């Protein structure tokens, strides 16, 4: 732990990298999984393809996916994209089922009422159906965020930044560095989780209104 205070600048730098590598994939994953979740909720065929596919993608070990990236997309070995893409894929895999289930769970009478009032499909999705899926989406985002923060460390095995570097350096020299990285990872995850939880509460006041 003392390592953090003795190396504050290095620590902040690692934190910035770690955060970037964890958050960017979550955002990309979210943007991709909303339309995919919608498609899966609408079409049996799409859900029969997308859901098992996302399960299989989730089984590919992160380390393997990270090291394969350069061969797959022609990126440089030390390019951050090698971590961002796999983590974005995991995020999609995590979110897609929840979003599609939540959209399917929107009560038929609510959708019917909206349709009968004259909502066109896109507007109905944006103002009625998706807001009702927000609680589930936030729950999925929280899991994705926390697991991503924990998984970014793996990137250090291929030389990419973040707290994972502390593990590798610590393994060779100094246990204190490993502890520093471990605690920093957990604290970062808890902060991100709390922020998402608060955002969820603010965005969905009706959830707590139920008696």
């Amino acid at each position: 732990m003392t390592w953090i205070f003795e190396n504050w600048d290095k620590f902040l730098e690692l934190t910035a990298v770690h955060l970037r590598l964890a958050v960017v994939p979550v955002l990309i994953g979210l943007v991709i999984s909303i339309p995919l979740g919608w498609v899966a909720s609408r079409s049996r065929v799409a859900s029969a393809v997308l859901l098992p596919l996302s399960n299989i993608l989730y089984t590919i070990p992160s380390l393997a996916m990270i090291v394969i990236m350069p061969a797959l997309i022609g990126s440089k070995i030390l390019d951050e994209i090698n971590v961002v893409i796999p983590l974005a894929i995991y995020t999609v895999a995590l979110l897609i089922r929840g979003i599609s289930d939540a959209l399917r769970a929107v009560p038929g009478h609510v959708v019917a009422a909206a349709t009968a009032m004259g909502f066109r499909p896109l507007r109905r999705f944006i103002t009625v159906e998706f807001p009702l899926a927000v609680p589930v989406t936030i729950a999925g985002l929280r899991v994705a965020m926390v697991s991503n923060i924990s998984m970014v460390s793996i990137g250090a095995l291929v030389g990419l930044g973040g707290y994972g570097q502390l593990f590798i350096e610590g393994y060779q020299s100094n246990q204190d560095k490993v502890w520093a990285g471990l605690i920093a990872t957990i604290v970062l995850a808890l902060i991100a989780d709390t922020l998402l939880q608060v955002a969820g509460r603010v965005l969905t006041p009706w959830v707590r209104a139920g008696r």
Partner: protein
Amino acid sequence: MIEFRAVTKRFEDGTIAVDELDLVVEAGTITVFVGPSGCGKTTSLRMVNRMIDSTSGTILVDGKDVMSVDPPTLRLGIGYVIQQAGLFPHRTVLDNVATVPLLSGWDRKRARTRAAELLETVGLDSGFAKRYPAQLSGGQQQRVGVARALAADPPVLLMDEPFSAVDPIVREGLQDELLRLQGELGKTIVFVTHDIDEALKLGDRVAVFREGGHLAQYAKPAELLSAPANDFVASFAGRDRGYRTLTFLRADVPVREVTTATLGSTVTSNGWVLAVDENRRPVGWLSPVDGATEVTADKLISGGSLYDGSSLRAALDAALSSPSALGVTVDPDGAVVGVVQADDVLKALATARAAGEVPS
């Protein structure tokens, strides 16, 4: 006015939900579609706002073929109320009601003002505006559903079993409320229910549907009871339809005098005494006793239903449900004016029959 011309709906699996329906819903009236499940009543309703499209035939709303308008535009001009209310759980009551005005392009402030007015119209005070649907009872949700449907002041209102999920007492209140609202607003309402009593109470005209999407009879409620077109209608209208026919008969029943006494006073009477409060509202019956008795609350037997001069049915029920066999008759303020007897009601019925008011 809504006009069905030879409207047929055949689903993909071949079942015929509605078969060559011809029917005219007069403007400014309530028309009730009633029938057992699977008779096509809901399908017929939902073809009006194109939640379902007909297979053949034409539906005209105010002379315009619904198929010539694109569905969202058509629906903005037609209010729709459904069984579970279909309120948006993530929006406050006020925003739920303001939905259609906002969709129709009103500015937010005007939409909300209008929504607040409507909540009052349907009998919800302003304290409900900021709540979410989950915080309301079933009956309150239904009121919000009605307010939401009325928000953009559509001339036509479609109601699909709107009150069938609430308990009987609340349902009756909602029905009375709807009749009161209709008295003020004069909308063209199509109301679907499987409850014949509800149909007879609310409908200016009632369309009885039977399995296979056939229209069995389309008539005024009294006619449906007194002159069912066929056995199906007769049996659907129920066993005590003779009794229910009385609902639609207004005739003079002689109102007789009754001994009344206020609580705390002392009476001498060898007959039944009706106890009343200071406003002459009935509070209960005192059974016949010898000699003088003080009228106290614990001696009272609670009374039956009250007759307010509305129909022969109410008069007969008041007499039959009263412990004294005397039906308490009240004025619009609820004060006692006298009593009616069952014999007199039957005599009034006989007179009405003789005059040809009741086809026998």
